[in-house]
């Protein structure tokens, strides 16, 4: 019972949001691109639980970034793996 206010506050302060569909696609694309190029990209912020999903404002920024980033990748490269298409 005494814990209730603390738990309530923690829940009330949780502003995190879900990873967007566009950024899930971005992560899959970069993972596939990494495998193609033999590299490992630090892409943590876009991944599930990454810094992009700490609050709605950042989440929206990242979502738009992933949509635009995927578009630009598709325009710029003609050898992208299937996960990027």
């Amino acid at each position, binding site marked *: 019972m005494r814990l209730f206010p603390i738990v309530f506050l923690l829940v009330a302060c949780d502003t995190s949001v879900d990873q967007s569909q566009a950024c899930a696609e971005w992560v899959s694309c970069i993972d596939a691109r990494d495998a193609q190029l033999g590299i490992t990209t630090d892409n943590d912020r876009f991944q599930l639980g990454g810094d992009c999903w700490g609050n709605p404002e950042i989440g929206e920024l990242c979502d738009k*970034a992933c949509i635009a980033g995927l578009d630009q990748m598709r325009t710029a490269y003609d050898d992208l793996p299937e996960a990027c298409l």
Partner: protein
Amino acid sequence: MTLSLMSWIALDALAHRPQAVEERLVIELPKISHVIGGEFVTGDEVFTVVLEYDTPFAMPMEMQVPRLRALENHRPVFAIVGPGLPEPTPELLDWLPAEVPEGMGVWVQRNDEPEREVYFEQVMRRTMWTTGSLAVHFPSAGTYEVWIWSPDFSVGEFWYGFGVEEDFSGGAWGGVFDDWGLFGW
């Protein structure tokens, strides 16, 4: 009072590390989010922001301009020049403000959408026009240069923002007060 208010707001808003642009600005912590503020005075300036990565990296970035009538035709752009990026076309090479070094590729944000997105920046409480955020993949460890220029030679302020991870250690908020004219209102 202002600082404590901004610290409180920053808990629930994206707060970039503020820094004033220089002709060539090397970013010490390129994986941390920054906002680089500057002003085109003559319109023919080219500013270079240097990002050096020890591993392939990906993050969002965007270009913003204060939403003021005087700046409605001010559309600064940026190009990222570095290893592993797409090979520039001849048309792009003509448009860029400097020569691309041999073997380097280019990403470009042309800031040419007819309708610009309006963004209310919650920390400094300013309304901005933005290119919209763009996720960029830096596919190689190494040095990348971000060239910022004004293709139409328009003058006025800009904010170039990148990253999402926040770190205000070492008095990083000081940039706001050192360059209040760029970041304040």
